[in-house]
C-alpha cells in the first residue's frame, strides 16, 4: 500500500488501460471537455473542423494499428475510406439502415476489401508494399468513376444516411428540452466514436493479439519461430485497419452528405501517414493527437492568415504566397522536422513532458 503511485506490481498493473490516478483524472477532464465543448464553441466552423478531425482520428487509429503496431506501410488508406463512404451512401442512405448498422456494414465491407488485398502483405515487404498500396488508390479511383450504379460516377453521390441511435437523432439533437444544432450533435457522435474506437484499439494492443502484432513488426520470421502465425496476423491487421478506415469514410460521407471520386486520392493517404507519424507511431493517443494537429493547423492558419506577413488572403491582395501554398509548405516542413528531431512524434513529446514532471524535481 505504501508504494509510490507509479510503481507497477506485476503484469496486471502494467496492462491496465488507464494505470495511474493521474491518467484517470486526465480522462475525466477529457470527458468534461467532450461534453461541454460544443456548447461553449457553438461556432459552426470550428465544430465542423473538429468533426472532420474526429473522423480523421478514427481513420488514423486504424492506420496506426497497421503501420505503428504491425510495421506495414500502406499508402492505400484513401481507398478504404472511399469504400466506406460509398457503403454509407448505399446502405445508410438508399436502404435506410440506422446508424449502428450502416457503420457496421461499412466496417464489414472495409474488412472484406482488406481481406482481398491482405494476402499481398505476405509476399511483399517494406517498400514494395508501399508502392502496391499506392497503386490501390489509383485503381480505386478508376473503380469509383466507373461503378456508376454504386458510386454515382463522376457526379458523385449524395449521402443521406441517418444519424440516429435509437431515439437519439444526432442530426437534430433534443435533450432535456434543449435543441442542439447538427454540428453539435455530430461532434458528440463522432468524438464518442473516437473514444470507443480508441478504447477498443488500446484494448487490442495490450492483449495477446496486440503483442503478437508487435512481434511481427519487429521481426516476422522470429515471431513465427516463437509460435506467432505471422501471416494470419498480418492479414488480420490489414483487415482491421481497413475496417476502421471504412468506418471513418462512412462517417465522413454521411457528415458531408455528398461525396465524389476526387476525394479519395493519394494526398488523403499521405495525410493519414503524416498524422500517424506526427502523432507518434504505435500509440493510439498519438493518432488522435496527430489528427487534431494536422487537421486543425490548416484551419488555424487559414483563420489567422491575415495576421501572417507575406500571405495573400484574397484575390489581388498583397503577399507572395497563398494560404494554401503556405499550408502545404508548412505541412511538409512539419513532417521533415518531426522526423528529424522527434521521431516519436507528438506522443513522444508528451511522454517527455510527463517523464519530466514525474521525476520532478530531479532533472533526470
Amino acid at each position, binding site marked *: 500500500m505504501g508504494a509510490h503511485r507509479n510503481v507497477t506490481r506485476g503484469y496486471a498493473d502494467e496492462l491496465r488501460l488507464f494505470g495511474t490516478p493521474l491518467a484517470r483524472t486526465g480522462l475525466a477532464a477529457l470527458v468534461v471537455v467532450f461534453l461541454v465543448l460544443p456548447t461553449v464553441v457553438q461556432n459552426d466552423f470550428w465544430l465542423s473542423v473538429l468533426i472532420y478531425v474526429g473522423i480523421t482520428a478514427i481513420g488514423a487509429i486504424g492506420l496506426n494499428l497497421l*503501420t505503428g503496431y504491425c510495421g506495414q*506501410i500502406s499508402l492505400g488508406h484513401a481507398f478504404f475510406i472511399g469504400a466506406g463512404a460509398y457503403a454509407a451512401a448505399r446502405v445508410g442512405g438508399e436502404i435506410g439502415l440506422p446508424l449502428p448498422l450502416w457503420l457496421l456494414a461499412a466496417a464489414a465491407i472495409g474488412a472484406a476489401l482488406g481481406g482481398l488485398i491482405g494476402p*499481398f502483405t505476405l*509476399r*511483399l*515487404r*517494406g*517498400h*514494395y508494399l*508501399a*508502392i*502496391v498500396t*499506392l*497503386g*490501390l488508390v*489509383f*485503381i480505386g479511383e*478508376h473503380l469509383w*468513376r*466507373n461503378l456508376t450504379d454504386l458510386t454515382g460516377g463522376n457526379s458523385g453521390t449524395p449521402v443521406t444516411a441517418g444519424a440516429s441511435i435509437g431515439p437519439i437523432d444526432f442530426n437534430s439533437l433534443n435533450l432535456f428540452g434543449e435543441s442542439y444544432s447538427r454540428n453539435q450533435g455530430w461532434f458528440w457522435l463522432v468524438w464518442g466514436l473516437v473514444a470507443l474506437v480508441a478504447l477498443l484499439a488500446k484494448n487490442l494492443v495490450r492483449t495477446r493479439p496486440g503483442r503478437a502484432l508487435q512481434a511481427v513488426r519487429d*521481426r516476422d*520470421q*522470429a515471431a513465427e*519461430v516463437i509460435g506467432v502465425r505471422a501471416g494470419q496476423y498480418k492479414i488480420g491487421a490489414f483487415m482491421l485497419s481497413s475496417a476502421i478506415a471504412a468506418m471513418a469514410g462512412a462517417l465522413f460521407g454521411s457528415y458531408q452528405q455528398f461525396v465524389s471520386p476526387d476525394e479519395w486520392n*493519394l494526398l488523403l493517404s*499521405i495525410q493519414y*501517414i*503524416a498524422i500517424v*507519424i506526427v502523432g507518434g507511431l504505435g500509440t493510439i493517443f498519438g493518432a488522435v493527437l496527430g489528427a487534431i494537429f494536422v487537421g486543425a493547423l490548416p484551419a488555424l492558419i487559414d483563420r489567422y492568415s491575415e495576421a501572417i506577413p507575406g500571405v495573400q488572403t484574397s484575390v489581388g491582395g498583397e503577399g*507572395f*504566397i*497563398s494560404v*494554401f*501554398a*503556405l499550408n*502545404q*509548405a508548412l*505541412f*511538409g*516542413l*512539419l*513532417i*521533415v522536422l518531426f*522526423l*528529424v528531431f522527434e*521521431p516519436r512524434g507528438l506522443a513522444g513529446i508528451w511522454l517527455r513532458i510527463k517523464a519530466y514532471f514525474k521525476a520532478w524535481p530531479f532533472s533526470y
Partner: protein
Amino acid sequence: MTAFLQNCFAGLSLGSTYALVALGFVVIFKSTGVINFAQGGLLALGAYLGYTFSNNLAVAFGVAVLLCCASAALVGATFERIVLRRMVGQPPFAVIMITIGLLFILEPMITAIWGFDQKQITNPWNIRTVEAGGLVFGVRDLWTIGLTAAVVAAFFVFFRYSSLGLAMRVTAFDPEAALAQGISARRVYATSWAIAAALAALAGILMAAGPGGLTPSIGFIALAAFPAMILGGMDSPAGAVLGGLVIGLAEALTRGYQDELFSWAGSNVSVIVPYLLMIVILLIRPYGLLGTKEVRRV
C-alpha cells in the same frame, strides 16, 4: 499495322520518360535504400528551371537542358546533405515520409515562383514532325527516345567502369566495408541524389518541350514511374529502364485499343494499367523482373 506501330512509337516516347524517372528512383534506392517521393518535385523544378533558362535568360535550348540538369543535381545533392543525411538508420517509412515532406515543400515553392498557368518553353522541336513509312514521328519524341538511350548508355558506362560508379555499387552492397576502403559514403549518397535529380530534370524538360507545355502537374508523371521501378526490380538500374519501356508501351497500347478491347473496363483504363501490370508481375515475381531477392534473416 500502321496504327499499331504509331502506338508503339508513342509508347516508346512515354516509356523513355518513365525510364529516366525510374532510373533515378533506382539509383537513390540502390545506394541509400530510400524511395524518393520528391522525384516528381525535382522533375517539375528541373522543367521550370529549364523554362527560366530558355525563355527568361534566353540561352540556347541545348544549354538550357544542361543547365537545368546541373542545377537540379545541385538541389538534389543539397537535399541529401541537409536533411537525409540525418536520417541514416531510421526505419524506411520515416525516410519515405521525409521525401514526401520535401515534395510538399517543393511544390508550393514552384507555384509561388512560376504560378499555375501553362508555360511554353522556347525550344527547337515544338510540334514539328517527320514522316516516314506512313508513320508520323514527332521530332520531340524522337529526341526523347534518342537522348534517353544516350543518357542511359552513359549511365551504365559510368556505373560499370568509373571509380565513382564502382563506389556507388559497393556502397550499396556493404556501406561499412566500402567506408573501410576509403570510399566516402557521403559523397556516394550525394552523387546518387544528384544523378537522380538530373535524370528527373531531363525527363521534365523533355516533356515540357512537347505539345503539352509546362504546368505544375507535370510532376505527377513520377507516380506512374513507381510501377516502372517496381516492375523492373527496385535495385536494378537495367530493370528500371526495362520497366519504364514496358509500362510506357503497355499504357500506349491499352490507350490505342481502348475502344476495341477494353471498353468493358471503363474509360481510361490505360491510366491504371501501370499499376495493374505491376501487381500482376509482383504476384509472379515478388522482387520484380530483374530485382535481387532480399535476404531474410531470423
